[in-house]
Protein backbone atom coordinates (compact mmCIF):
# COMPACT_ATOMS: atom_id res chain seq x y z
CA UNK A 1 0.00 0.00 0.00
CA UNK A 2 2.73 2.41 1.02
CA UNK A 3 4.89 1.50 -1.98
CA UNK A 4 1.96 1.94 -4.35
CA UNK A 5 1.14 5.32 -2.83
CA UNK A 6 4.75 6.45 -3.18
CA UNK A 7 4.84 5.37 -6.80
CA UNK A 8 1.56 7.10 -7.54
CA UNK A 9 2.85 10.34 -5.99
CA UNK A 10 6.11 9.99 -7.95
CA UNK A 11 4.12 9.50 -11.14
CA UNK A 12 1.97 12.57 -10.51
CA UNK A 13 5.06 14.71 -9.88
CA UNK A 14 6.66 13.32 -13.04
CA UNK A 15 3.63 13.93 -15.22
CA UNK A 16 3.15 17.44 -13.84
CA UNK A 17 6.62 18.27 -15.20
CA UNK A 18 6.43 16.05 -18.26
CA UNK A 19 8.54 18.31 -20.49
CA UNK A 20 11.51 18.23 -18.11
CA UNK A 21 10.95 14.53 -17.59
CA UNK A 22 11.00 14.00 -21.32
CA UNK A 23 14.28 15.90 -21.71
CA UNK A 24 15.85 13.82 -18.94
CA UNK A 25 14.53 10.60 -20.42
CA UNK A 26 15.74 11.56 -23.90
CA UNK A 27 19.24 11.98 -22.47
CA UNK A 28 19.12 8.43 -21.11
CA UNK A 29 17.49 7.09 -24.26
CA UNK A 30 20.13 8.66 -26.46
CA UNK A 31 23.03 7.34 -24.43
CA UNK A 32 21.61 3.83 -24.15
CA UNK A 33 20.81 3.75 -27.86
CA UNK A 34 24.37 4.81 -28.68
CA UNK A 35 25.75 2.33 -26.16
CA UNK A 36 23.83 -0.57 -27.72
CA UNK A 37 24.64 0.48 -31.27
CA UNK A 38 28.32 0.99 -30.56
CA UNK A 39 28.74 -2.25 -28.69
CA UNK A 40 26.74 -4.22 -31.23
CA UNK A 41 28.75 -2.80 -34.09
CA UNK A 42 32.14 -3.00 -32.41
CA UNK A 43 31.57 -6.56 -31.32
CA UNK A 44 30.20 -7.46 -34.72
CA UNK A 45 33.50 -6.23 -36.15
CA UNK A 46 35.42 -8.07 -33.46
CA UNK A 47 33.58 -11.27 -34.25
CA UNK A 48 34.28 -10.78 -37.94
CA UNK A 49 37.97 -10.32 -37.26
CA UNK A 50 37.94 -13.28 -34.90
CA UNK A 51 36.40 -15.18 -37.72
CA UNK A 52 39.06 -13.90 -40.10
CA UNK A 53 41.96 -14.83 -37.91
CA UNK A 54 41.01 -17.19 -35.13
CA UNK A 55 38.67 -19.51 -36.95
CA UNK A 56 40.85 -19.87 -40.00
CA UNK A 57 44.16 -20.19 -38.29
CA UNK A 58 45.14 -23.50 -36.80
CA UNK A 59 45.56 -23.38 -33.05
CA UNK A 60 48.77 -25.35 -33.42
CA UNK A 61 50.83 -25.97 -36.51
CA UNK A 62 53.42 -28.76 -36.54
CA UNK A 63 56.15 -28.49 -39.17
CA UNK A 64 59.83 -29.04 -39.76
CA UNK A 65 62.01 -26.06 -40.10
CA UNK A 66 65.44 -26.19 -41.72
CA UNK A 67 67.83 -24.86 -39.11
CA UNK A 68 71.21 -25.67 -37.55
CA UNK A 69 71.11 -28.55 -35.11
CA UNK A 70 71.38 -27.18 -31.55
CA UNK A 71 72.96 -30.44 -30.33
CA UNK A 72 76.48 -30.19 -31.74
CA UNK A 73 78.90 -33.11 -31.02
CA UNK A 74 81.16 -30.98 -28.83
CA UNK A 75 78.26 -30.42 -26.40
CA UNK A 76 77.80 -34.16 -26.04
CA UNK A 77 81.42 -34.72 -25.15
CA UNK A 78 81.91 -35.23 -21.42
CA UNK A 79 85.35 -33.66 -21.37
CA UNK A 80 83.89 -30.28 -22.46
CA UNK A 81 80.75 -30.48 -20.35
CA UNK A 82 81.92 -27.83 -17.88
CA UNK A 83 83.26 -25.40 -20.49
CA UNK A 84 81.49 -22.79 -22.58
CA UNK A 85 81.75 -23.95 -26.20
CA UNK A 86 81.75 -21.53 -29.11
CA UNK A 87 81.17 -23.02 -32.54
CA UNK A 88 81.28 -20.75 -35.56
CA UNK A 89 79.70 -21.16 -38.99
CA UNK A 90 77.30 -23.93 -38.04
CA UNK A 91 75.31 -24.94 -41.11
CA UNK A 92 71.87 -26.45 -41.32
CA UNK A 93 71.79 -30.13 -41.84
CA UNK A 94 69.28 -32.73 -42.92
CA UNK A 95 67.01 -30.98 -45.46
CA UNK A 96 63.96 -33.13 -44.70
CA UNK A 97 60.82 -31.01 -44.83
CA UNK A 98 58.30 -33.67 -43.91
CA UNK A 99 57.29 -34.73 -40.44
CA UNK A 100 58.89 -37.98 -39.29
CA UNK A 101 56.48 -40.82 -38.88
CA UNK A 102 53.52 -38.60 -39.78
CA UNK A 103 50.94 -41.40 -39.74
CA UNK A 104 51.66 -42.26 -36.10
CA UNK A 105 51.81 -38.60 -35.10
CA UNK A 106 48.37 -37.97 -36.59
CA UNK A 107 46.98 -41.04 -34.89
CA UNK A 108 48.33 -39.87 -31.54
CA UNK A 109 46.85 -36.39 -31.98
CA UNK A 110 43.47 -37.79 -33.02
CA UNK A 111 43.47 -39.86 -29.83
CA UNK A 112 44.23 -36.79 -27.67
CA UNK A 113 40.90 -35.50 -26.41
CA UNK A 114 42.11 -31.91 -26.06
CA UNK A 115 42.27 -31.75 -29.87
CA UNK A 116 39.13 -31.11 -31.88
CA UNK A 117 40.68 -32.30 -35.10
CA UNK A 118 43.58 -31.97 -37.47
CA UNK A 119 44.21 -31.31 -41.11
CA UNK A 120 47.41 -32.51 -42.77
CA UNK A 121 49.09 -30.47 -45.49
CA UNK A 122 51.71 -31.05 -48.11
CA UNK A 123 53.46 -27.92 -49.29
CA UNK A 124 54.85 -28.27 -52.79
CA UNK A 125 56.82 -25.47 -54.43
CA UNK A 126 56.03 -25.27 -58.17
CA UNK A 127 56.25 -23.05 -61.22
CA UNK A 128 52.98 -22.14 -62.93
CA UNK A 129 53.42 -22.22 -66.73
CA UNK A 130 51.81 -19.25 -68.45
CA UNK A 131 52.89 -19.55 -72.06
CA UNK A 132 56.58 -18.82 -72.18
CA UNK A 133 56.69 -17.37 -68.67
CA UNK A 134 57.00 -19.41 -65.48
CA UNK A 135 55.60 -17.96 -62.28
CA UNK A 136 56.84 -19.01 -58.86
CA UNK A 137 54.20 -20.57 -56.76
CA UNK A 138 53.24 -22.95 -54.03
CA UNK A 139 50.67 -25.69 -54.21
CA UNK A 140 49.21 -26.79 -50.87
CA UNK A 141 47.95 -30.31 -50.73
CA UNK A 142 45.00 -30.27 -48.29
CA UNK A 143 42.42 -32.62 -46.89
CA UNK A 144 39.39 -30.61 -48.07
CA UNK A 145 36.85 -32.19 -45.73
CA UNK A 146 38.99 -31.46 -42.66
CA UNK A 147 39.81 -27.93 -43.84
CA UNK A 148 36.14 -27.10 -44.42
CA UNK A 149 34.99 -28.42 -41.06
CA UNK A 150 37.87 -27.03 -38.99
CA UNK A 151 39.04 -23.88 -40.72
CA UNK A 152 36.01 -22.49 -42.62
CA UNK A 153 37.74 -23.23 -45.88
CA UNK A 154 34.53 -22.54 -47.84
CA UNK A 155 34.61 -18.87 -46.75
CA UNK A 156 37.54 -18.25 -49.07
CA UNK A 157 36.06 -19.83 -52.14
CA UNK A 158 34.84 -17.20 -54.60
CA UNK A 159 34.08 -19.55 -57.52
CA UNK A 160 33.66 -23.31 -57.89
CA UNK A 161 33.40 -25.83 -55.08
CA UNK A 162 36.07 -26.88 -52.63
CA UNK A 163 34.83 -30.46 -52.48
CA UNK A 164 35.69 -30.91 -56.18
CA UNK A 165 39.34 -31.05 -55.13
CA UNK A 166 38.54 -34.39 -53.56
CA UNK A 167 36.11 -35.63 -56.19
CA UNK A 168 38.05 -34.72 -59.32
CA UNK A 169 41.54 -36.26 -59.58
CA UNK A 170 44.42 -33.96 -60.48
CA UNK A 171 42.43 -30.83 -59.80
CA UNK A 172 43.57 -27.43 -58.51
CA UNK A 173 41.95 -24.52 -56.72
CA UNK A 174 43.76 -21.35 -57.81
CA UNK A 175 44.38 -18.21 -55.87
CA UNK A 176 42.56 -15.26 -57.43
CA UNK A 177 45.86 -13.57 -58.27
CA UNK A 178 47.32 -16.72 -59.80
CA UNK A 179 44.18 -17.24 -61.89
CA UNK A 180 44.40 -13.69 -63.26
CA UNK A 181 48.01 -14.14 -64.23
CA UNK A 182 47.32 -17.49 -65.87
CA UNK A 183 44.05 -16.29 -67.45
CA UNK A 184 42.56 -19.62 -66.40
CA UNK A 185 38.83 -20.35 -66.07
CA UNK A 186 37.06 -23.11 -64.22
CA UNK A 187 37.20 -26.35 -66.19
CA UNK A 188 40.39 -25.38 -68.02
CA UNK A 189 43.70 -27.11 -67.51
CA UNK A 190 46.83 -25.36 -66.19
CA UNK A 191 50.35 -26.74 -66.26
CA UNK A 192 52.72 -26.62 -63.34
CA UNK A 193 56.38 -27.56 -63.26
CA UNK A 194 57.36 -29.43 -60.13
CA UNK A 195 60.65 -29.11 -58.29
CA UNK A 196 61.72 -32.33 -59.97
CA UNK A 197 61.32 -30.74 -63.42
CA UNK A 198 58.19 -32.62 -64.46
CA UNK A 199 55.32 -30.79 -66.15
CA UNK A 200 51.93 -31.80 -64.74
CA UNK A 201 48.49 -30.80 -66.08
CA UNK A 202 45.93 -29.89 -63.40
CA UNK A 203 42.23 -29.12 -63.89
CA UNK A 204 40.95 -25.82 -62.41
CA UNK A 205 37.92 -26.45 -60.18
CA UNK A 206 37.62 -23.02 -58.54
CA UNK A 207 39.19 -19.86 -57.19
CA UNK A 208 39.83 -18.66 -53.68
CA UNK A 209 40.57 -15.27 -52.20
CA UNK A 210 41.94 -14.76 -48.70
CA UNK A 211 42.33 -11.00 -48.89
CA UNK A 212 46.09 -11.20 -48.59
CA UNK A 213 47.22 -10.19 -52.10
CA UNK A 214 50.67 -11.71 -51.88
CA UNK A 215 49.17 -14.97 -50.70
CA UNK A 216 46.55 -15.09 -53.47
CA UNK A 217 49.18 -14.38 -56.15
CA UNK A 218 51.28 -17.38 -55.21
CA UNK A 219 49.24 -20.05 -53.52
CA UNK A 220 46.83 -22.62 -54.78
CA UNK A 221 45.28 -25.76 -53.32
CA UNK A 222 45.08 -29.33 -54.40
CA UNK A 223 44.46 -32.61 -52.66
CA UNK A 224 47.08 -34.19 -50.38
CA UNK A 225 47.51 -37.09 -52.80
CA UNK A 226 48.06 -34.84 -55.82
CA UNK A 227 50.61 -32.78 -53.93
CA UNK A 228 52.46 -35.92 -52.87
CA UNK A 229 52.51 -36.96 -56.54
CA UNK A 230 53.88 -33.55 -57.55
CA UNK A 231 56.70 -33.97 -55.04
CA UNK A 232 57.24 -37.57 -56.09
CA UNK A 233 56.84 -38.71 -52.51
CA UNK A 234 55.02 -41.55 -50.82
CA UNK A 235 51.64 -41.38 -49.07
CA UNK A 236 53.16 -40.66 -45.63
CA UNK A 237 54.87 -37.45 -46.82
CA UNK A 238 53.20 -34.69 -44.77
CA UNK A 239 54.91 -31.32 -44.25
CA UNK A 240 52.42 -29.61 -41.92
CA UNK A 241 49.86 -30.79 -39.43
CA UNK A 242 47.29 -28.15 -38.48
CA UNK A 243 45.50 -28.80 -35.26
CA UNK A 244 42.38 -27.23 -33.81
CA UNK A 245 41.93 -27.57 -30.07
CA UNK A 246 38.74 -27.62 -28.05
CA UNK A 247 40.11 -24.86 -25.87
CA UNK A 248 42.13 -22.15 -27.59
CA UNK A 249 43.81 -21.13 -24.34
CA UNK A 250 45.62 -24.46 -24.08
CA UNK A 251 47.42 -23.84 -27.39
CA UNK A 252 50.81 -22.63 -26.04
CA UNK A 253 51.15 -25.50 -23.57
CA UNK A 254 49.98 -28.20 -25.96
CA UNK A 255 52.21 -26.82 -28.73
CA UNK A 256 55.27 -27.17 -26.48
CA UNK A 257 54.26 -30.66 -25.48
CA UNK A 258 53.75 -31.80 -29.09
CA UNK A 259 57.04 -30.24 -30.17
CA UNK A 260 58.81 -32.28 -27.53
CA UNK A 261 56.98 -35.57 -28.10
CA UNK A 262 56.92 -35.53 -31.90
CA UNK A 263 60.35 -33.89 -32.37
CA UNK A 264 58.96 -31.21 -34.68
CA UNK A 265 58.65 -27.47 -34.63
CA UNK A 266 55.35 -26.17 -33.34
CA UNK A 267 53.70 -22.78 -33.54
CA UNK A 268 50.65 -21.78 -31.53
CA UNK A 269 48.04 -19.18 -32.37
CA UNK A 270 48.61 -17.16 -29.23
CA UNK A 271 52.26 -16.43 -29.92
CA UNK A 272 51.64 -15.83 -33.61
CA UNK A 273 48.66 -13.53 -33.11
CA UNK A 274 49.49 -11.99 -29.76
CA UNK A 275 48.53 -8.50 -30.90
CA UNK A 276 45.18 -9.70 -32.12
CA UNK A 277 43.49 -10.17 -28.76
CA UNK A 278 44.82 -6.80 -27.62
CA UNK A 279 43.03 -5.19 -30.56
CA UNK A 280 39.71 -6.85 -29.73
CA UNK A 281 40.05 -5.89 -26.10
CA UNK A 282 40.81 -2.22 -26.87
CA UNK A 283 37.84 -1.96 -29.22
CA UNK A 284 35.46 -3.38 -26.58
CA UNK A 285 36.95 -1.15 -23.91
CA UNK A 286 36.51 1.94 -26.09
CA UNK A 287 32.85 1.23 -26.74
CA UNK A 288 32.19 0.65 -23.05
CA UNK A 289 33.98 3.89 -22.15
CA UNK A 290 31.99 5.91 -24.70
CA UNK A 291 28.72 4.32 -23.59
CA UNK A 292 29.35 4.90 -19.92
CA UNK A 293 30.48 8.47 -20.52
CA UNK A 294 27.24 9.19 -22.34
CA UNK A 295 25.30 7.67 -19.46
CA UNK A 296 27.12 9.73 -16.87
CA UNK A 297 26.34 12.90 -18.84
CA UNK A 298 22.71 11.84 -18.91
CA UNK A 299 22.98 11.18 -15.18
CA UNK A 300 24.03 14.79 -14.56
CA UNK A 301 21.00 15.90 -16.59
CA UNK A 302 18.74 13.88 -14.32
CA UNK A 303 20.53 15.22 -11.26
CA UNK A 304 19.89 18.80 -12.40
CA UNK A 305 16.28 18.23 -13.24
CA UNK A 306 15.58 16.51 -9.93
CA UNK A 307 17.34 19.28 -8.04
CA UNK A 308 15.18 21.86 -9.79
CA UNK A 309 12.10 19.80 -9.13
CA UNK A 310 12.94 19.66 -5.44
CA UNK A 311 13.35 23.45 -5.23
CA UNK A 312 10.02 23.87 -6.98
CA UNK A 313 8.31 21.28 -4.83
CA UNK A 314 9.61 22.44 -1.44
CA UNK A 315 6.05 23.23 -0.34
CA UNK A 316 4.76 19.86 -1.43
CA UNK A 317 7.58 18.08 0.34
CA UNK A 318 6.93 20.12 3.49
CA UNK A 319 3.24 19.31 3.56
CA UNK A 320 3.85 15.64 2.82
CA UNK A 321 6.15 15.55 5.81
CA UNK A 322 3.70 17.52 7.97
CA UNK A 323 0.90 15.10 7.15
CA UNK A 324 2.87 12.04 8.09
CA UNK A 325 5.28 11.08 5.31
CA UNK A 326 8.67 10.31 6.81
CA UNK A 327 12.01 11.39 5.36
CA UNK A 328 12.54 7.96 3.88
CA UNK A 329 9.13 8.11 2.16
CA UNK A 330 10.13 11.40 0.55
CA UNK A 331 13.48 9.94 -0.48
CA UNK A 332 11.76 6.97 -2.05
CA UNK A 333 9.42 9.26 -3.99
CA UNK A 334 12.33 11.08 -5.61
CA UNK A 335 14.33 7.91 -6.14
CA UNK A 336 11.30 6.37 -7.86
CA UNK A 337 11.17 9.39 -10.14
CA UNK A 338 14.85 9.04 -11.02
CA UNK A 339 14.80 5.29 -11.51
CA UNK A 340 11.64 5.37 -13.61
CA UNK A 341 13.24 7.97 -15.88
CA UNK A 342 16.21 5.59 -16.11
CA UNK A 343 14.07 2.53 -16.72
CA UNK A 344 11.72 3.95 -19.35
CA UNK A 345 14.40 6.08 -21.00
CA UNK A 346 16.66 3.04 -21.03
CA UNK A 347 13.98 0.71 -22.41
CA UNK A 348 13.23 3.08 -25.29
CA UNK A 349 17.00 3.43 -25.76
CA UNK A 350 17.32 -0.35 -26.11
CA UNK A 351 14.62 -0.36 -28.78
CA UNK A 352 16.23 2.51 -30.69
CA UNK A 353 19.63 0.85 -30.31
CA UNK A 354 18.20 -2.33 -31.80
CA UNK A 355 16.69 -0.40 -34.72
CA UNK A 356 20.00 1.40 -35.36
CA UNK A 357 21.83 -1.93 -35.22
CA UNK A 358 19.38 -3.38 -37.76
CA UNK A 359 20.00 -0.35 -40.00
CA UNK A 360 23.77 -0.76 -39.78
CA UNK A 361 23.26 -4.41 -40.58
CA UNK A 362 21.76 -3.32 -43.92
CA UNK A 363 24.63 -1.08 -45.03
CA UNK A 364 26.64 -2.75 -47.80
CA UNK A 365 30.15 -3.66 -46.79
CA UNK A 366 32.39 -5.40 -49.27
CA UNK A 367 35.83 -6.46 -48.38
CA UNK A 368 38.17 -8.59 -50.41
CA UNK A 369 39.23 -10.31 -47.22
CA UNK A 370 35.76 -11.70 -46.59
CA UNK A 371 33.95 -12.57 -49.78
CA UNK A 372 31.01 -14.05 -47.87
CA UNK A 373 30.22 -10.82 -45.94
CA UNK A 374 28.11 -8.24 -47.78
CA UNK A 375 26.86 -5.91 -45.04
CA UNK A 376 28.40 -4.47 -41.87
CA UNK A 377 28.55 -7.09 -39.15
CA UNK A 378 26.49 -6.48 -36.00
CA UNK A 379 26.40 -8.53 -32.84
CA UNK A 380 22.96 -8.81 -31.21
CA UNK A 381 24.11 -10.45 -28.00
CA UNK A 382 21.49 -10.10 -25.25
CA UNK A 383 24.26 -9.39 -22.74
CA UNK A 384 24.75 -5.84 -24.11
CA UNK A 385 21.05 -5.12 -23.67
CA UNK A 386 21.09 -6.40 -20.11
CA UNK A 387 24.21 -4.31 -19.36
CA UNK A 388 22.58 -1.29 -21.00
CA UNK A 389 19.40 -1.35 -18.94
CA UNK A 390 21.31 -2.18 -15.74
CA UNK A 391 23.69 0.74 -16.27
CA UNK A 392 20.87 3.14 -17.02
CA UNK A 393 19.05 2.18 -13.82
CA UNK A 394 22.21 2.34 -11.73
CA UNK A 395 23.29 5.71 -13.16
CA UNK A 396 19.88 7.28 -12.67
CA UNK A 397 19.69 5.81 -9.19
CA UNK A 398 22.90 7.59 -8.23
CA UNK A 399 21.85 10.76 -10.08
CA UNK A 400 18.64 10.70 -8.06
CA UNK A 401 20.19 9.65 -4.78
CA UNK A 402 21.69 12.99 -3.74
CA UNK A 403 18.72 15.18 -4.67
CA UNK A 404 16.44 12.63 -2.99
CA UNK A 405 18.52 12.72 0.16
CA UNK A 406 18.37 16.50 0.12
CA UNK A 407 14.59 16.33 -0.23
CA UNK A 408 14.31 13.87 2.65
CA UNK A 409 16.21 16.27 4.89
CA UNK A 410 14.03 19.29 4.18
CA UNK A 411 12.73 20.67 7.47
CA UNK A 412 9.00 21.34 7.03
CA UNK A 413 9.04 23.92 9.83
CA UNK A 414 11.52 26.09 7.94
CA UNK A 415 9.43 25.98 4.77
CA UNK A 416 6.06 26.49 6.43
CA UNK A 417 7.19 29.25 8.79
CA UNK A 418 9.10 30.94 5.98
CA UNK A 419 5.83 31.84 4.23
Amino acid at each position, binding site marked *: *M*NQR*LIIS*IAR*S*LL*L*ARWRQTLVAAIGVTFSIAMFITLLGFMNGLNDMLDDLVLNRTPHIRLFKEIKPNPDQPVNLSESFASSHNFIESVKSSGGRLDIYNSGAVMQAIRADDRALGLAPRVVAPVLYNAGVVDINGIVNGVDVVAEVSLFSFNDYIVAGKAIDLKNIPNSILLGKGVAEKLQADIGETVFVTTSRGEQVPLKVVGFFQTGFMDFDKIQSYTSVETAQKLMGKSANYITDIQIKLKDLNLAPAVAKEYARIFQTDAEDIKSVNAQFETGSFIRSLLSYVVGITLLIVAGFGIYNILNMMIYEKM*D*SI*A*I*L*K*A*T*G*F*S*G*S*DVRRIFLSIAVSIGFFGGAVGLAIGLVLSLLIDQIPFNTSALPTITTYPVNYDLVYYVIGITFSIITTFFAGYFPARKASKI*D*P*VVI*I*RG*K
Partner: protein
Amino acid sequence: MIRTVLEAKNISKNFHDPVTIQVLDRINFSVNSGEFISVIGKSGCGKSTLLYILSTMDTDYSGDLVIDGQNMREKKEAELARVRNEKIGFVFQFHYLLNEFSVLHNVMLPGLKLGKYSRQEVEHRAMERLKILGIDDQAHKNANQLSGGQKQRVAIARALINDPLIVMGDEPTGNLDKKNSEIVFDIFKELAEVYHQTLLIVTHDQGFAENTHRIIEMEDGRIVS
Protein backbone atom coordinates in the same frame (compact mmCIF):
# COMPACT_ATOMS: atom_id res chain seq x y z
CA MET B 1 -15.31 10.86 28.69
CA ILE B 2 -12.67 13.49 29.06
CA ARG B 3 -9.02 12.57 28.85
CA THR B 4 -5.74 14.35 28.34
CA VAL B 5 -4.80 14.40 24.69
CA LEU B 6 -1.62 16.43 24.82
CA GLU B 7 0.62 17.55 27.59
CA ALA B 8 3.55 19.97 27.54
CA LYS B 9 5.96 19.64 30.46
CA ASN B 10 8.60 22.31 31.01
CA ILE B 11 9.13 22.92 27.31
CA SER B 12 11.89 25.44 26.62
CA LYS B 13 13.55 26.42 23.38
CA ASN B 14 16.48 28.64 22.47
CA PHE B 15 17.50 30.10 19.13
CA HIS B 16 21.27 30.21 18.83
CA ASP B 17 21.76 32.21 15.71
CA PRO B 18 23.41 34.70 15.93
CA VAL B 19 23.07 35.06 19.72
CA THR B 20 21.22 32.79 22.09
CA ILE B 21 17.69 33.98 22.66
CA GLN B 22 15.21 32.08 24.74
CA VAL B 23 11.96 31.84 22.78
CA LEU B 24 10.09 29.49 25.07
CA ASP B 25 10.53 29.37 28.80
CA ARG B 26 9.24 26.34 30.71
CA ILE B 27 5.85 25.99 29.11
CA ASN B 28 3.43 23.75 30.99
CA PHE B 29 -0.11 23.05 29.94
CA SER B 30 -2.35 20.24 28.83
CA VAL B 31 -5.15 19.82 26.33
CA ASN B 32 -8.18 17.68 27.12
CA SER B 33 -10.25 15.94 24.50
CA GLY B 34 -13.07 18.01 23.04
CA GLU B 35 -11.49 21.33 23.97
CA PHE B 36 -11.43 24.22 21.51
CA ILE B 37 -8.38 26.24 22.52
CA SER B 38 -6.87 29.33 20.97
CA VAL B 39 -3.34 30.52 21.62
CA ILE B 40 -2.89 34.26 21.33
CA GLY B 41 -0.07 36.66 21.83
CA LYS B 42 1.88 39.37 20.10
CA SER B 43 4.00 38.64 17.09
CA GLY B 44 7.29 37.04 18.22
CA CYS B 45 5.99 35.83 21.57
CA GLY B 46 6.75 32.22 20.58
CA LYS B 47 3.23 30.95 19.95
CA SER B 48 4.00 29.52 16.50
CA THR B 49 7.27 28.05 17.74
CA LEU B 50 5.34 26.32 20.50
CA LEU B 51 2.80 24.98 18.02
CA TYR B 52 5.52 23.44 15.82
CA ILE B 53 7.06 21.76 18.84
CA LEU B 54 3.65 20.42 19.86
CA SER B 55 3.15 19.21 16.29
CA THR B 56 6.35 17.04 16.62
CA MET B 57 7.86 18.65 13.51
CA ASP B 58 10.33 20.68 15.55
CA THR B 59 12.38 18.36 17.76
CA ASP B 60 14.95 20.87 18.97
CA TYR B 61 13.62 21.67 22.47
CA SER B 62 14.08 20.69 26.09
CA GLY B 63 11.34 19.31 28.31
CA ASP B 64 8.77 16.66 27.48
CA LEU B 65 5.88 16.43 25.08
CA VAL B 66 3.31 13.74 25.74
CA ILE B 67 0.71 12.98 23.10
CA ASP B 68 -1.95 10.36 23.82
CA GLY B 69 0.10 9.07 26.75
CA GLN B 70 3.29 8.62 24.74
CA ASN B 71 6.41 10.66 25.25
CA MET B 72 7.59 12.09 21.95
CA ARG B 73 11.16 12.60 23.10
CA GLU B 74 12.19 8.99 22.58
CA LYS B 75 10.70 8.63 19.14
CA LYS B 76 12.59 8.51 15.89
CA GLU B 77 11.86 10.62 12.82
CA ALA B 78 9.80 7.92 11.09
CA GLU B 79 7.80 7.24 14.27
CA LEU B 80 7.07 10.94 14.69
CA ALA B 81 5.88 11.03 11.08
CA ARG B 82 3.52 8.20 11.96
CA VAL B 83 2.21 10.12 14.99
CA ARG B 84 1.56 13.20 12.83
CA ASN B 85 -0.16 11.06 10.26
CA GLU B 86 -2.40 9.27 12.70
CA LYS B 87 -3.07 11.68 15.54
CA ILE B 88 -2.55 15.23 14.37
CA GLY B 89 -4.33 17.23 11.71
CA PHE B 90 -2.84 20.50 10.45
CA VAL B 91 -4.24 23.67 9.04
CA PHE B 92 -1.70 26.32 8.11
CA GLN B 93 -2.00 29.96 7.15
CA PHE B 94 -1.24 28.91 3.59
CA HIS B 95 -3.24 25.98 2.26
CA TYR B 96 -0.31 23.82 0.97
CA LEU B 97 -2.40 21.80 -1.44
CA LEU B 98 -0.54 19.80 -4.07
CA ASN B 99 -1.40 21.25 -7.47
CA GLU B 100 -0.57 17.95 -9.20
CA PHE B 101 -3.55 16.28 -7.57
CA SER B 102 -7.29 16.78 -7.57
CA VAL B 103 -9.01 18.19 -4.49
CA LEU B 104 -10.27 14.74 -3.55
CA HIS B 105 -6.83 13.17 -3.92
CA ASN B 106 -5.27 15.92 -1.79
CA VAL B 107 -7.68 15.07 1.01
CA MET B 108 -7.06 11.35 0.55
CA LEU B 109 -3.24 11.45 0.66
CA PRO B 110 -2.76 11.27 4.47
CA GLY B 111 -5.47 8.58 4.60
CA LEU B 112 -3.74 6.51 1.97
CA LYS B 113 -0.48 6.96 3.84
CA LEU B 114 -2.08 5.71 7.06
CA GLY B 115 -3.17 2.57 5.25
CA LYS B 116 -5.89 1.77 7.77
CA TYR B 117 -8.68 1.74 5.22
CA SER B 118 -8.90 0.51 1.63
CA ARG B 119 -8.67 3.04 -1.18
CA GLN B 120 -12.44 3.00 -1.70
CA GLU B 121 -13.07 3.63 1.97
CA VAL B 122 -10.55 6.45 2.10
CA GLU B 123 -12.23 8.00 -0.93
CA HIS B 124 -15.63 7.67 0.73
CA ARG B 125 -14.35 9.22 3.96
CA ALA B 126 -12.75 12.08 2.02
CA MET B 127 -16.06 12.78 0.26
CA GLU B 128 -17.85 12.77 3.63
CA ARG B 129 -15.49 15.39 4.98
CA LEU B 130 -15.74 17.53 1.87
CA LYS B 131 -19.51 17.35 2.27
CA ILE B 132 -19.37 18.51 5.90
CA LEU B 133 -17.30 21.48 4.71
CA GLY B 134 -19.67 22.13 1.82
CA ILE B 135 -17.20 21.73 -1.00
CA ASP B 136 -18.01 18.23 -2.22
CA ASP B 137 -19.02 19.70 -5.59
CA GLN B 138 -15.40 20.78 -6.15
CA ALA B 139 -13.94 17.33 -5.39
CA HIS B 140 -12.73 16.50 -8.88
CA LYS B 141 -11.31 19.90 -9.73
CA ASN B 142 -7.61 20.54 -9.60
CA ALA B 143 -6.43 22.20 -6.42
CA ASN B 144 -5.27 25.37 -8.20
CA GLN B 145 -8.74 26.02 -9.68
CA LEU B 146 -10.25 26.82 -6.27
CA SER B 147 -10.62 30.16 -4.50
CA GLY B 148 -8.56 30.93 -1.39
CA GLY B 149 -11.43 30.21 1.01
CA GLN B 150 -12.26 26.95 -0.72
CA LYS B 151 -8.62 25.87 -0.62
CA GLN B 152 -8.50 26.47 3.13
CA ARG B 153 -11.61 24.34 3.57
CA VAL B 154 -9.96 21.56 1.55
CA ALA B 155 -6.95 21.85 3.85
CA ILE B 156 -9.28 21.41 6.84
CA ALA B 157 -10.83 18.35 5.22
CA ARG B 158 -7.34 16.96 4.71
CA ALA B 159 -6.56 17.57 8.40
CA LEU B 160 -9.66 15.58 9.38
CA ILE B 161 -9.24 12.56 7.12
CA ASN B 162 -7.64 10.28 9.71
CA ASP B 163 -9.96 11.29 12.61
CA PRO B 164 -7.06 12.97 14.41
CA LEU B 165 -6.87 13.25 18.16
CA ILE B 166 -6.18 16.94 17.79
CA VAL B 167 -6.34 19.49 14.98
CA MET B 168 -3.69 22.20 15.12
CA GLY B 169 -3.98 25.46 13.26
CA ASP B 170 -1.35 28.12 12.65
CA GLU B 171 -3.23 31.32 11.82
CA PRO B 172 -5.71 29.38 9.68
CA THR B 173 -7.67 32.53 8.92
CA GLY B 174 -4.63 34.78 8.53
CA ASN B 175 -4.76 34.81 4.75
CA LEU B 176 -8.52 35.05 4.35
CA ASP B 177 -10.96 37.93 4.02
CA LYS B 178 -13.56 38.57 6.70
CA LYS B 179 -16.27 36.49 5.07
CA ASN B 180 -14.08 33.47 4.54
CA SER B 181 -12.57 33.84 8.00
CA GLU B 182 -16.07 33.61 9.43
CA ILE B 183 -16.83 30.52 7.38
CA VAL B 184 -13.64 28.84 8.58
CA PHE B 185 -14.33 29.84 12.17
CA ASP B 186 -17.86 28.45 11.94
CA ILE B 187 -16.42 25.22 10.66
CA PHE B 188 -14.08 24.96 13.62
CA LYS B 189 -16.90 25.76 15.97
CA GLU B 190 -19.09 23.10 14.38
CA LEU B 191 -16.27 20.57 14.57
CA ALA B 192 -15.80 21.28 18.25
CA GLU B 193 -19.43 21.32 19.25
CA VAL B 194 -21.03 18.76 16.95
CA TYR B 195 -18.16 16.33 16.45
CA HIS B 196 -16.29 17.02 19.74
CA GLN B 197 -13.07 17.50 17.82
CA THR B 198 -10.14 18.76 19.91
CA LEU B 199 -8.72 21.94 18.38
CA LEU B 200 -5.63 24.00 19.19
CA ILE B 201 -5.48 27.15 17.08
CA VAL B 202 -2.77 29.79 17.10
CA THR B 203 -4.16 33.15 16.09
CA HIS B 204 -3.68 36.86 16.61
CA ASP B 205 -7.32 37.54 15.74
CA GLN B 206 -8.83 38.62 19.07
CA GLY B 207 -12.38 38.15 17.77
CA PHE B 208 -11.63 34.61 16.75
CA ALA B 209 -10.08 33.76 20.09
CA GLU B 210 -12.93 35.19 22.15
CA ASN B 211 -15.35 32.70 20.67
CA THR B 212 -13.27 29.65 21.61
CA HIS B 213 -13.66 27.65 24.83
CA ARG B 214 -10.31 28.47 26.30
CA ILE B 215 -7.69 31.10 25.53
CA ILE B 216 -4.00 30.64 26.26
CA GLU B 217 -2.22 33.96 26.15
CA MET B 218 1.50 34.11 25.67
CA GLU B 219 4.05 36.80 26.19
CA ASP B 220 7.83 36.61 25.79
CA GLY B 221 7.92 32.83 25.71
CA ARG B 222 5.68 32.28 28.73
CA ILE B 223 2.07 31.53 29.23
CA VAL B 224 0.55 34.46 31.05
CA SER B 225 -3.02 33.26 31.35
